[in-house]
């Protein structure tokens, strides 16, 4: 069974239909891209999947259970993690603290246990810190644990966001433009990291991406949104050849001339 099955998802803001009847099926262990011109509704679709917006219509089945309309923290707890298009780290917290926040739902310390420093807390806390360091190492931030998030260079902030998302112990990770604003070298490294998420951690990945080189290299399937509707879906080579996609990106004239 597919890990994620979104069916006929619609979300509108007043008169604007941001996501219109979009369906998306994601198989376990795959890397799937969602592409489309600016304002096509990709991020809104992500926000619906992660519970930041409630869908007006449609169903979202994740890992066998419906998650449509649940709160974001509940959805995260069930195994969907995400990063943000415009990096949203906890700027005045250190790298390791950012990751530790991601573990919130996986830690069990209750208030009275913390106040009395019960044995379980004394075990849990150092273990969580060790795990957080491991995750930071995995994304390539070894030794920068105590750096404030806002002081990290841009590329490292993107990595930290991924580490923080990994800390929630997800099955599915949604990456919103993970290579935006990166130079070719950084983009290459980010692409490798995304592949390692799947190959080494066994995660399923959905990414929104504008860099077609990245999209075409790593995704197994691509869905294309335009004006809130899904206009195409398929393997990279199929999408490349799809006239409607070319039209959406370059305009009608370009598509005809092609």
């Amino acid at each position, binding site marked *: 069974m597919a890990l994620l099955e979104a069916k006929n998802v619609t979300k509108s803001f007043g008169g604007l239909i941001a996501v219109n009847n979009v369906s998306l099926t994601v198989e376990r262990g795959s890397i799937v891209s969602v592409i489309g011109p600016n304002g096509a509704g990709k991020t809104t679709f992500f926000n619906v999947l992660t519970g930041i917006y409630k869908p007006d219509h449609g169903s979202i089945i994740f890992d066998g259970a419906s998650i449509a309309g649940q709160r974001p*923290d509940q959805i995260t707890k069930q195994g969907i993690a995400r990063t943000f298009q415009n990096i949203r780290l906890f700027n005045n917290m250190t790298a390791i*603290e950012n990751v530790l926040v991601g573990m919130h739902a996986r830690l069990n*310390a209750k208030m009275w246990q*913390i106040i009395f420093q019960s044995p379980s807390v004394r075990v849990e806390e150092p273990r969580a810190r060790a795990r957080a360091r491991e995750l930071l190492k995995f994304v390539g931030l070894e030794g920068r644990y*105590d750096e404030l998030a806002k002081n990290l260079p841009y590329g490292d902030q993107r990595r930290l966001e991924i580490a923080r998302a990994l800390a929630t112990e997800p099955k599915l990770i949604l990456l919103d433009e993970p290579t935006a604003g990166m130079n070719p070298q950084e983009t290459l490294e980010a692409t490798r990291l995304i592949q390692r998420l799947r190959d080494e951690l066994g995660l399923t990945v959905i990414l929104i991406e504008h860099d077609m080189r990245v999209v075409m290299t790593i995704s197994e399937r691509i869905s294309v949104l335009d004006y809130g509707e899904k206009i195409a879906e398929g393997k990279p080579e199929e999408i490349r050849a799809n006239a409607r996609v070319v039209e959406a990106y370059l305009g009608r004239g370009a598509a005809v001339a092609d």
Partner: protein
Amino acid sequence: MSTTSLPNSPFAALNRGPLAYIALTAYVVVTSALMLMNTRTSLGTDVLFVLFLLGFLLLYRANVANGYKLALGAIMLIGVVPYFGTMNAYYIELAIQAGIFVALALGLNVVVGFAGLLDLGYVAFFAVGAYLWGIFSTDQISQISPGASPVSPQWFYLFMALGLFVGAFFGVLLGLPVLRLRGDYLAIVTLGLGEVIRVLAVNLDRPINITNGSQGIKSIARPPLPDFLRALFPGLDDPQLYQLFIYALALLVVGITILTVFRLKNSRIGRAWEAIREDETAAVAMGVPLVRMKLMAFAVGASFAGVMGVLFAAKQQFINPPTFDLIRSIGILAMVILGGMGSIPGVILGGVLVTLLDLQILPRIATELGALKRQGIVIPDWFDPAQYQRALFGLLLIIMMIFRPEGILPDQRRREEAHATEAQEMPEEAGAGEVKPA
């Protein structure tokens, strides 16, 4: 920061190594001794008292073993202050007031500093605790349900625990309607809710007389003096013993409060609060349940105020609504901001500093100016120093916000962690820099 500038300053040697121990001990001994020799309430004693308190700050900042810091601090708090207090009641009263407000500021710091929820009605929870003990320990209770008699003063300790829960309950109650609000809107609504509690205290004398209205509640019971205290200090009279007793209780509550907020801050819950403060949307997307965590912050913050309210009522033996007005809330917020939002040592300092300014330093300046005027120094007639205390306080706040908006002792834990290696290397680097390469 001063930690990095210290190695170059002439006082560097005083801040580390064996000399630091000697210097600190000497400072504390000298200020303590001078203070204990000048027990009359006067400008000189005021200055000595402040210098003595400054010892705590030096102790906190010095590079000496933590055990030594704790030991010296404990001697000052448990030995010197109470002893001095038996000689001059005014100063131990100051210390008690400072303790009460430090606990309140620490509680508000959980809400404002940790979770970033601007709360302008915090004093309401203090009022709830105070009225709780005020009503149940006096005849006021028989006004509510005829036939009921006040609880025995022995029950005071139970009521302190009860104050914790009642405070937390009201924290949640007033937190619920404001969950969706942020920033300015949150501040305005909490301000309103805080005033609601005060206005209730004024008006709940009819139809059933619960709070005795604007007259307030008189002759509130104090917990009975423990026998050992009397045995320990046979030479002291009851008022003095009571002050020592209340001081000890306040110190205990403050100690527990500090330990609690410190542990919470460095925990899953404290990190969740900070995450909410930094970015609500990101926090919730990382699995932090917003509603529960915000209510928890309100409850924890309010519970400290509830406990201190109970103690405050027993100390004052009289409470009335104006004690819990908006200015009080703003005062507590000023302690948090002045000291450094989110920083536990900062907020403690802020609490002590604002209390001293309010009760000691500013009135003292006013008295001294008044005395000068009477001696014929020309101070214009329109300037009545006593009237300008608040203005001076406001001016101080403004100056602070311009030159040090992050507070006097900003949150340092992370900064020190982040630069731990740098700070260690610093002295060698600074030393090496002075020797010019040949």
